[in-house]
């Protein structure tokens, strides 16, 4: 921006017109990959997926248009669909709440005057580096009913061993516990947010005799709301797409207690070759994610505080 205005005043109008044409040329030249990429890998797939969702297609024979049948079947004649919705919602709602609350607490503790912040931060972050396939293998082993670390610990403490991912009641809580293991990146984001709070505000509050709780409630929490909002939205989008952990660790079991939405979708598409039905499922979760995000963003004006915003 500054460049064109600077040069525009330096140069005569004809040159300025040349400059805008020149910039349009270079701008769009650099954007060629974006334009191609958006059409090849976003627009076309979205269109194809929408089309497929109204068809019966096994990728071998030609697709047959079936109207809304896939969508109607989804809601009326596939009990596993609702099972998958419930499982995914349970995991996402409970998991994201727990992750965000614990990460926020950990960041607060790190931000209190403690020694060794860097060492703690590194240790908290390490699990986030572990690829999901490795953490699935590792946690399967940790959850081994006989020889796994957790039951060994429980037994040595005199507590009853658990079934972990092999129990209908315990499988989702176990997967949530595993997800809490990987909250290091949320902690780091929160910690950076905490360090961005103006020091003068905290000092002023301390001088005015505000209690720790007061400072938390009226300064820290309002300042952190945008970061909380961001992590909640990202967490929900990620939770809805959980696949690898249940696929590797439980394959949806026991008794479909960990049949996640994307696992069910994957099976419909690549095990039963029901591309149309699976695409309808994909569109449903896409729209659901969009609606949830919009609701969160809309209601966020009530509780999210932006710096420089005078409304609150």
């Amino acid at each position: 921006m500054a460049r064109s205005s600077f040069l525009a005043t330096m140069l005569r109008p004809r040159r300025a017109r040349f400059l805008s044409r020149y910039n349009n040329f270079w701008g769009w030249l650099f954007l060629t990959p974006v334009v191609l990429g958006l059409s090849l890998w976003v627009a076309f797939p979205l269109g194809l997926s929408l089309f497929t969702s109204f068809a019966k297609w096994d990728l071998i024979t030609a697709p047959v248009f079936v109207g809304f049948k896939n969508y109607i079947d989804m809601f009326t004649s596939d009990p596993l669909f609702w099972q998958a919705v419930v499982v995914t919602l349970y995991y996402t709602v409970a998991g994201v709440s727990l992750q965000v609350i614990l990460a926020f607490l950990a960041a607060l503790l790190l931000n209190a005057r403690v020694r060794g912040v860097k060492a703690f931060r590194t240790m908290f972050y390490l699990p986030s580096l572990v690829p999901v396939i490795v953490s699935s293998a590792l946690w399967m082993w940790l959850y081994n009913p006989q020889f796994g670390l957790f039951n060994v610990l429980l037994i040595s403490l005199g507590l009853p061993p658990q079934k972990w991912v092999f129990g209908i009641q315990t499988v989702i809580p176990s997967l949530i516990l595993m997800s809490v293991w990987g909250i290091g990146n949320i902690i780091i984001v929160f910690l950076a947010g905490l360090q961005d709070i103006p020091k003068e505000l905290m000092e002023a509050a301390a001088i005015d005799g505000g209690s720790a709780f007061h400072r938390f409630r009226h300064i820290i929490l309002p300042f952190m709301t945008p970061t909380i909002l961001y992590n909640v939205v990202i967490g929900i989008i990620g939770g809805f797409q959980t696949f690898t952990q249940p696929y590797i660790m439980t394959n949806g079991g026991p008794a479909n207690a960990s049949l996640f939405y994307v696992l069910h979708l994957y099976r419909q598409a690549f095990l039963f070759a029901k591309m149309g039905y699976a695409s309808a499922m994909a569109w449903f979760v896409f729209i659901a994610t969009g609606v949830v995000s919009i609701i969160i963003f809309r209601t966020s004006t009530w509780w999210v505080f932006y710096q420089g915003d005078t409304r609150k």
Partner: protein
Amino acid sequence: MRRWKTGPDFRLLAYVLLIGFSLFCVFPLIWLIRSSLMTSREMFTLPPRLLPAALQWNNYLDLFHVVPFGRYFLNTLVIVILNVVGAVMSNSLIGYAFARIRFRGRTIMYGICMATIMLPQTVTMIPLFIEWKLFHGINTYAPLTVLAFFGNGFYIFMLHQFFKTIPIEYDEAAFVDGVNHFQIVIRIIAPMSKPALAVVAIFSFLTSWNDFFGPFLYLNDQRKYTLSLGLKYLISGYSVMGQWQFLMAASVLIVLPVALLFFITQRYFIQGLTMGGLKG
């Protein structure tokens, strides 16, 4: 950096909680390494042993006979390098255009790029698979590498934010000298943006190194497997046979390069994480 006072009463509690959570984070990793150095019989004894009687380093060597692990490593490396090169090249040009060239349609294109960050993978999974089938790309590395060259909303955002902080006078001076935009990126902007480009390189390394779902969906020839697919193969084959030590050794080998990269480039890591998190 000054931190705020919490009461002295809280200090002890804070340490207890921090150390407790650290143990929770680190102990599974220690358990992983410990298990990778045991014989399978040692892993399955009751009461369980805390440490192996003798360190079974040959688990790591035997692993290479059990599965073609070296081959998987090279395959993964090829994919990762292509992804890193593609991401750095495409996103620096795109980020530059958005940050420093004033052209018609810039705002709307930037908005669309940002919207793609929120696009769930689930919805494009099936059509992309069909598309690659049409392009005869199934069982090749094309679906796992080509997309990196077309830009990524998140990296575009990060580089855009960084490029905006470089004073525009640099471009103006070069511009008056008759240098075009492409040369400005190569000669001026890129050398000044090494930290931001490093963040993009590190993150695309990490994403493609750790990717399981992509290779899982597109590769079916075992000779083309990546490390994560190789591990999946080990899980389905060897956990049944109780050969968990190979699984654990393979896991350690997969995590090791990532951990090394993290320790070497920790500063950029933290930078990248917070950049994405705070302004997103």
